């Protein structure tokens, strides 16, 4: 076994190991592998006594394992709710774990059949609901239970908030934070210049000219948030064309992007872009930097976004910037839904995996969140309403944005709408592909026809893929 006497063998070995090392260095392949599929433990915990104060029969003592997305809202509100559960249910402890990448963190636990009891499935790294919806508990009994004040929870919620979390008739995602989609502006800046909020795309175009005269752009965008314009466009199109538009998009109908109301909106936007009222360079700008150009530098004056914008830009907002929202514009003044109609869908999707060890505990946690103390705490500390009505005082805790959200909700009355597929759940994970198309449209490199074709191709690809389970929306 003299080493130097066997050069060929050694070389073969080295050659083999180099090839193996090259393979190992690719890494991505190994990333696909699991840590082994564990045995599926069946839902276990013998139920506790069911009573009015314990509607789901949480066992005592038991632990509730809550995994909360740590994003713009932090996790302190969830810890607050956990304390509420512990105070109401003797012997129950709530363990709140933060995560920033929900899908990556929880994927092995779902595979092993050992998911947490309740999850805040939010953020850029959320789990596509479509892939796990068979593994989620129905939450209908949560909203039919009484809250800690003794009122049935269903009666305390804003209208339509359960719809985006209902798939094929099953209510499985409780979206907690009420999100109003609007176009945002500085009321103080508008007042100074005598501008009024545009209600149609033509009015936007006129306002763009006035803004230009003051050396400002009308609109702007950031590369990761180009699809905020898609959200606005769909909102406008649904106001114009009604449910027909919403159903076509939600059910991935062939040619859905060519419907006249959608085309009208696209054309309206294109006019604004062609007139040069869109701040150039957005497709190369990080979205928070772009948003600061609006809230701090006031380079542009209108920004379509969700109600989280105030909290997100808290540290980068000019003093005296009275952030105010207005409903998304309509195409014409005789649209099917009035201008006041509001696109509102809740975010922060809470789910209770049916294979969790303490399903009843997970539901009890949601019951605490939907009770008064926790909901008011959320509104107060996050300056954002939950889906529970009446938790925000008229002064909006001093926030103009929150005030205007509540005003818009009141003005809209029963004309509140949302949709399922594209936002907020992004059910089929199409956002990444759509961003590409929208970035080139907003930067003026493509036209309405290209935008329509691009979006239709993305939609058709999902519609035709038999491996993706579809949700039928009605």
């Amino acid at each position, binding site marked *: *076994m*003299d080493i*130097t*006497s066997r*050069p*060929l*063998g050694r*070389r073969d070995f*080295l*050659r083999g190991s*180099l*090839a*193996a090392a090259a*393979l*190992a*260095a*690719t*890494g*991505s*392949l*190994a*990333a*696909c*592998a*699991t840590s082994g*599929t564990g045995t599926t433990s069946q839902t276990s915990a013998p139920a506790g006594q069911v009573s009015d104060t314990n509607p789901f029969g949480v066992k005592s003592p038991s632990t509730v394992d809550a995994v909360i997305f740590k994003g713009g809202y932090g996790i302190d509100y969830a810890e607050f709710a956990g304390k509420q559960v512990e105070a109401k249910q003797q012997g129950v402890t709530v363990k709140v774990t933060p995560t920033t990448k929900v*899908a990556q963190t929880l*994927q092995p636990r779902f*595979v*092993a*059949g050992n998911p947490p009891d309740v999850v805040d499935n939010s953020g850029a790294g959320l*789990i*596509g609901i479509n*892939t*796990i919806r*068979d*593994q989620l508990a129905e939450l209908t009994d949560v909203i039919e239970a009484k809250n800690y004040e003794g009122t049935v929870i269903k009666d305390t919620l804003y209208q339509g908030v359960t719809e985006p979390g209902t798939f094929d008739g099953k209510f499985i995602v409780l979206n907690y934070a009420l999100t109003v989609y609007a176009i945002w502006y500085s009321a103080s800046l508008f007042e100074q210049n005598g501008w009024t909020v545009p209600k149609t795309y033509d009015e936007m175009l006129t306002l763009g000219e006035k803004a230009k005269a003051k050396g400002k752009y009308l609109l702007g965008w950031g*590369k*990761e948030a180009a699809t905020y314009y898609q959200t606005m466009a769909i909102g406008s199109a649904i106001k114009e064309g009604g449910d027909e538009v919403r159903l076509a998009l939600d059910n991935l109908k062939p040619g859905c992007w060519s419907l006249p109301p959608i085309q009208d909106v696209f054309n309206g936007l294109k006019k604004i872009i062609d007139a040069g009222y869109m*701040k*150039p*360079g*957005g*497709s*190369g*700008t*990080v979205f928070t*930097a772009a948003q600061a*150009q609006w809230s701090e530098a006031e*380079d542009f004056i209108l920004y379509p976004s969700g109600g989280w914008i105030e909290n997100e830009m808290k540290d980068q907002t000019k003093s005296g910037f009275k952030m105010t929202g207005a409903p998304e514009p309509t195409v014409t003044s005789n649209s099917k839904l009035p201008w006041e109609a509001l696109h509102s869908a809740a975010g922060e999707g809470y789910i209770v995996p049916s294979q969790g060890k303490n399903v009843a505990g997970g539901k009890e946690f949601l019951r605490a969140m939907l009770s008064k103390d926790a909901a008011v705490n959320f509104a107060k500390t996050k300056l954002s309403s939950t889906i529970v009505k009446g938790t925000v005082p008229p002064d909006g805790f001093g926030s103009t944005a929150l005030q205007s959200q509540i005003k818009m909700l009141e003005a809209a009355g029963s004309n509140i709408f949302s949709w399922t597929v594209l936002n907020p759940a*992004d059910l089929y*994970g199409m*956002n*990444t592909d759509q*961003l*590409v198309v929208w970035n*080139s449209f907003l*930067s003026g*490199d493509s036209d309405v026809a290209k935008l329509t074709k691009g979006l239709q191709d993305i939609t058709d690809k999902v519609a035709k893929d038999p*491996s993706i389970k579809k949700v039928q929306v009605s």
Partner: protein
Amino acid sequence: MTALSSGGLTSGVAPQGGVSSSGGLRRFGSARWRRRNLTFDKISFFLVFLIIPVAFYIAFVVSPFVQAAYFSLTDWTGFSPAMNFIGLSNYGKLFTDSTFLQAMGNNILMAIVVPIVTLGLAMFFATLVTVGGSARGNIRGLRSSSFYRVISFFPYVIPAIVIGLIWSQIYDPSAGLLNGILTRLGLDQFASFAWLGDPRTARWCVMFVIIWGLVGFYMVLFIAAIKGVPAEVFEAARIDGAGRFRTALSITIPLIRENVQTAFIYIGILALDAFVYMAALEPGGGPNNTTLVMAQELFTTAFTKGQFGYACAMGVVLALITLAYAGLIFAVNRIFGGKSEVGE
């Protein structure tokens, strides 16, 4: 580790080695050999240096690969233990998926441009720093070359993700350093020009960042290799009248051939991955997906779209392309007269 010394060694030992290796084989087969040699020392040596590492390698490298290859034949969503075997249809889908094919094209372009430019520059600087100095006296590099060596290594010390974030700020259309300088110079057409947002510039801008980050490392690698070549060789070439360029081409590169080959393989693998740089610079795949790389597409498919089976198929293809790339580099090296074996 130089070609010279290893060449000498091999030519001296090879014939002898051929004979004794066949003899060794015969001895290995005999019962006497086994009895005499399986001492505790030998067994414990095998255990510590062979069996345990191989077991680890199989458990943590080979088995995940095999598992991933199997998953690529299923429709696994990634979030449940259930999956159906669907044969090769993921691969069929892959080669009609225009987005993935575009990502593959982007990767291949990067695997061509990034290694050639980076290693070319690295070789140029390494030559200047080691043998490119004064034509009189000893063979040496430029004045204060050790200073340049340190400076050029700086970018490599910064983690890739930080490099990406720094450059995404530099490229910012409105507040970025690059456009700031260009507009200050009077080039007003670059005001608000989106370097990372324009399909004409995006891919070159990200490649520039990768090259900027890596030149220093490969330069240091080449310097070490050139230092291993005896100075007499360069002196002899100079006496024969070879200029600096001719010396680099005919003396330096052939003598550090094995290092260049290894460098090509490393940097090629990096260019075929490039995930970290892209995550910072172009998380969305860039304008018209011109900077989308396979690893990004794989990640989105797995975690956002919940199609782990399909993502595994992408991983397998990526691994095969990487292997093919390494094979290609070996082949090119052999065609141009290098020994096909790894350096000793």
